[in-house]
Structures are given as structure tokens and as C-alpha cells.
């Protein structure tokens, strides 16, 4: 529906107003980056806290081997008898004490969260990256080329939207299980997860990019490039792409939060990360079984981490959306 307003608004031409815009907002794009974005960041305590939390979590994930007290993915370091130790209370059998307690396998919850965070973030980032590349490419093609290319891409997007991501994931998992040899399945599980989440996420990138491309491609700088004889590919890549990226950035941030949640939901439903390498979602799934039994920490700490992560990423996305929106000044 995006071309509707344009079609109806076509009419007498713009005038000096544009000049005003220039004077009002001396900075359009680059300066938004250089000054406005930074300024708005400095003046948004929420954004700063969110960025801090996100950064802290990302760093913790990256340097998990350094900050974690144990490596929960290394089976040789585990002792089943440590299972269900409460936070800060010495284990009845082994006498070991764990800050955040242990889970049913005797894994230190603190370390497991760090490693789980790694998987959640990795899956989230890669899934969004995948969706982004796919969606942006298809959106660009659909918007720029139009015609049947656009029809096909956008109808496929419609079909895609009809399927809830969980079903897409189930489908991909099924297929993957059918074609991937067993020895690779454990490593592949993560990639399958990425594929599944990415595939259910590309549509919004495609839609937004298509809309923006439709606007950009009629701008005169594109015509100027065509006039020179630039190929469609070069125009899409060099001219249009950089100009449709800022909404993509916003969506990507928000998608990241959604992807992390989607990963958690899938792992919660049992089709996600392998149990020997639990992600935050797997931890919550495990922890949920112990909610009523008093081992609250197995659910509570991973859930808090997930919430903190999703929330701060969402906050960042929200702030970015406002900060990048020139009309919201």
C-alpha cells in the first residue's frame, strides 16, 4: 500500500520548503550519525543504561571462558552429585558452593548462563544477519525491478507470513534431520536454528526495504546514475542500498530481541539448542520443570538474563528508531 500516498500526492511541485528543511536540520544523514545520534544518546539515560547492559552481556558472552567459573559444556568437569545446589548454599554431597546454584545436571547456573548467553546471542545475531541479507536483497530486487519479480517475491512473503515461525522452524528441523548426517547434527542444530529463525524473519526486512526502495528509486540521484549508464546492480548496491539502511538498522535491532526470544521459545518447545549445550531458552525449559519444586534459581536467573537482554536490546531499538527518525525532532 506504500505507493498509495505517492500516487495521490503527485501534483503541483515542491517549492522552497525544502530549503527550510535544510536550514532547520542542517544535518540530514551523516550529521545524524556524527552529532545528532551521539547527542541524543548522551541525553537518553535509558539508552545509555540499555547499551551498557547489552554491552556487558555481549562481552560476558564473548569472554565466557574467562569469566565463567566452570565450563558447563565440558562434560569432564561436571559432577552430577552437584545437581540442585541452591545459590550460595554448600552442596549436601560434595560441599561445593555455587553463587547462582546448579541445575539438574550439576552445572553451575552462573557459568551455564554465560555459555547459554553465547549461544542465544550467536543464534540471534546470525539469524538477524541472515534475515537481513535475505530480506534486504529481495526487498531491493522487488522494489527496484518491480514487475513480476516484485509480485513473486511479495507473494512468497505473504505465504511466509501465513506460517508462524514455530511451524517454519519445525519444518526446517524436520528437513534438516532428514538430510544432515548424524555426526554433524549437534553442530548443525545451531545453524538450523539460525536458518529457521532467519527464514521466518526476512519478510519485514524485505517489506521495509521494498517500500524505501520504491521511494528512493524515483529520486533524482538515481535517475542521474541511470543517465550515466550505470547498471541496475550498481545502482541498487551503491546508490539505493546505503540510503535504505537506517530503517533496516532499526528493524535489525528489534529483530535481534525477537530472534533471541524466538530462540528461547523454540528451545523451550524442545526443538532448539542441543541439551548438552543449553541456550538461555533451554535453561528456562529445564528450569520451568523445577519452578514448583523450589529450585527456582534454575528458571529465575536465566529468565532474568533473557529479559534483561531482550529488554535492553528492545530499548536500544526503540531509541534508535526515534533518534533516526528525522521527523521526530
Amino acid at each position, binding site marked *: 500500500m506504500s505507493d498509495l500516498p505517492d500516487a495521490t500526492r503527485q501534483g503541483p511541485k515542491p517549492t522552497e520548503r525544502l530549503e527550510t528543511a535544510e536550514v532547520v536540520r542542517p544535518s540530514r544523514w551523516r550529521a545524524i550519525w556524527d552529532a545528532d545520534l551521539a547527542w541524543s544518546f548522551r541525553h537518553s539515560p535509558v539508552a545509555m543504561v540499555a547499551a551498557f547492559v547489552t554491552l556487558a552481556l555481549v562481552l560476558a558472552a564473548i569472554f565466557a571462558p574467562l569469566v565463567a567459573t566452570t565450563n558447563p559444556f565440558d562434560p569432564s568437569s561436571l559432577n552430577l552429585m552437584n545437581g540442585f545446589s541452591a545459590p550460595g548454599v554448600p552442596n549436601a554431597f560434595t560441599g561445593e558452593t555455587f553463587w547462582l546454584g546448579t541445575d539438574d545436571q550439576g552445572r553451575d547456573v552462573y557459568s551455564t548462563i554465560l555459555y547459554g548467553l553465547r549461544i542465544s546471542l550467536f543464534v540471534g545475531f546470525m539469524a538477524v544477519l541472515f534475515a537481513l541479507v535475505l530480506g534486504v536483497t529481495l526487498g531491493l530486487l522487488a522494489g527496484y525491478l518491480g514487475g513480476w519479480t516484485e509480485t513473486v517475491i511479495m507473494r512468497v512473503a505473504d505465504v511466509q507470513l501465513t506460517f508462524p515461525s514455530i511451524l517454519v522452524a519445525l519444518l526446517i528441523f524436520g528437513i534438516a534431520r532428514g538430510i544432515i548426517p548424524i555426526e554433524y547434527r549437534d553442530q548443525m542444530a545451531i545453524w538450523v536454528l539460525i536458518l529457521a529463525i532467519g527464514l521466518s524473519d526476512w519478510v519485514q526486512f524485505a517489506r521495509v526495504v521494498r517500500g524505501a526502495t520504491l521511494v528512493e528509486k524515483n*529520486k533524482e540521484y538515481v535517475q542521474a546514475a541511470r543517465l550515466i*549508464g550505470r547498471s541496475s546492480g550498481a545502482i541498487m548496491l551503491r546508490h539505493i542500498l546505503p540510503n535504505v539502511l537506517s530503517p533496516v538498522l532499526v528493524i535489525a535491532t528489534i529483530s535481534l530481541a525477537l530472534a533471541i526470544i524466538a530462540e528461547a521459545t523454540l528451545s523451550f518447545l524442545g526443538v532448539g539448542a542441543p541439551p548438552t549445550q543449553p541456550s538461555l531458552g533451554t535453561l528456562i525449559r529445564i528450569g520451568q520443570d523445577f519452578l514448583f519444586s523450589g529450585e527456582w534459581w534454575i528458571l529465575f536467573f536465566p529468565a532474568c538474563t533473557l529479559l534483561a537482554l531482550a529488554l535492553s536490546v528492545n530499548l536500544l531499538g526503540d531509541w534508535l528508531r526515534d533518534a533516526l527518525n528525522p521527523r521526530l525532532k
Partner: protein
Amino acid sequence: MTLVSVKSLTRVFDVSKPWLNRLIERLPKRHLTAVSDVSFDIPERTTYALVGESGSGKSTIGKMVVGLLRPTSGHVEIGGVDLVTEKDRAAIDRVRSDIQMIFQDPFASLNPRWRVRDIIVEPVAARGGDTTGMAERLLEQVGLSADDVGKYPHQFSGGQRQRICVARALASEPKLIVCDEPTSALDVSVQAQVLNMMSDLKDEHGLTYLFISHDLTVVRHMADTIGVLYLGRLVEEAPPETLFTTPAHPYTAMLIDAAPRLDAFGREVEPPEGEIPDPIDPPKGCAFHPRCPLAIDRCTAERPALKPFGPGRVACHRAGEITLKGAA
């Protein structure tokens, strides 16, 4: 010598509804004739101006001349080469680099993510030419500082941006520059700067301009020959002085009358009647007849051809019978 030769140029847009709608609602196909049978020549080193109100087909002609849009019929020949029919790649390439265009909106015509240097040299760089020092030189030519090459478009005012557009247009050393309302987004004082600069460059580089504008005063200042468009048709063509003092077509006269004038305080003239008709379904005969004070029966039936008249050409059955109302 004629650089640009436009022959019976026509462009029809299909604005029909989707076939299913037509089928069910029993609608015919609808065509919008944006440009109809327009012919004119532009001699080298002259400025040919197209004026006309919104929707009269000025930009469409401009785009066809530079090759951004294919004509439905008719030809555009540039230096004897028709970009549409020419087979020789080298000739096409040569002609392409001979043509450049400047657009109306100085904000939309520069890629906001590119540095000025890259913008300016793109026409050459895209062809793999050597561009060292080129941007700096061109910037100085259009009256900006060579230090500006590293900046982004948003760091410039509208007038400066239009200068950058001109610099870009000059990069490939073109013969023809099509200017589609290059100053209508600018303030008068800045407009004067840009127009002056364009005149200077024309002399310096031996350029030919196809100058598109809806502003009669600007056209009068810039053009060597003016073509007046109405609903996609060329209704009159004449040198500025003739056109403004003795317009031959009633539409031209109406335009000149309607344009506000600095020297006419409290001028009370009857404003022109009516508005531009729907281009999809233009009036029969002379398209201007419903608004024309001189219309006779013949005008409703027969479309007048563009015939030589005085120093120019005019398409009117009653050519020359008009007088300007507010003429001083």
C-alpha cells in the same frame, strides 16, 4: 549546426486499471498522452526552453531527450545519433557522455550517503576514466571551494547543492545539458546566482541547454528560443522577445497575463478561466479551446498544426489575433 533534433516525439502512458477491473467494470484501456507529436531542433550553443504548466509534458520530453524514457513514437537525434535505434555501441556511448541532466530538487538529486567528490566524478569514474583532481577543479568552476570535496551534500545549502549538480553534469564534458526546472526550488537571490553561473558556463564550455521551466520570467531571461507546451503539445515556438511582446497563441497570452508582475500594483485583471483538462481525456480539436476566449467552431473540431508564424511557429487557427490584457 543542430545538436538536438526532436521529431514527432510522442509518449503515451498506459494508465489503465488492471485487466480484471476493466473486464468487470467494462472499462476501456486508458492512455495518457503525455507528449504528442512534438518536434523541434536545438542548434549548438543555444538554449532552448520549454515552458508550460504542471503536467504539460516538459519533464517527459526532457527524459526522452536524455534517454531515460523511451519514446512511444518519434525520434530524438543527438548529433545525428538516435539512442533508441542506434546499434553501434561506441556511438551510443559517445552520445551518452555528451548528455547530462540537472534536476529540480537539489536535495533528491545528490546521493546523501556519498561524498561530494564521489558524486561529481561518478559520470567519469563509471566509465573508468581518470578522475584525479577533477572534482576540485569542477567545484571551483561552479563557484565552490575545492576544500568541499570531502563533505556530504547535507552540509550545503540548496543553491550550493545545485552547483554541485552542475559540476557533476560538467564532469563528462557534455555538449548538451537538460535542465529540468533547475531553480524552481531556490530562493530568488540564489536563483539569480545559479542562472548567472549557468550562463557563464555555457559560454565557457560551449554548452547547449534544453531548459525546462514553468516560470516565464526565468525562461525569458535564459532562452534563445522558447517552446510553449500545453497538454503535451507544442503550441507555440518563438524567440523570447517576440513571444513576450506579441504572443501568437492565446494560451501563451494567457500565461503571460496570469504571471504576476512586479510593476503592476493592484492590477485588476480577470483571471483566466478554468483549469488544465484531464490529460487522459483531452478536449477534441485544439486542446485549449474550452478555455480560449477566441475559440470558434473550427477549434472544437480540428486540431491545428504547428505552422511557421513570424520568427517562430504556432499551432492555432486564429494565430496572431490575440492581444495581451495587461500589456504595459
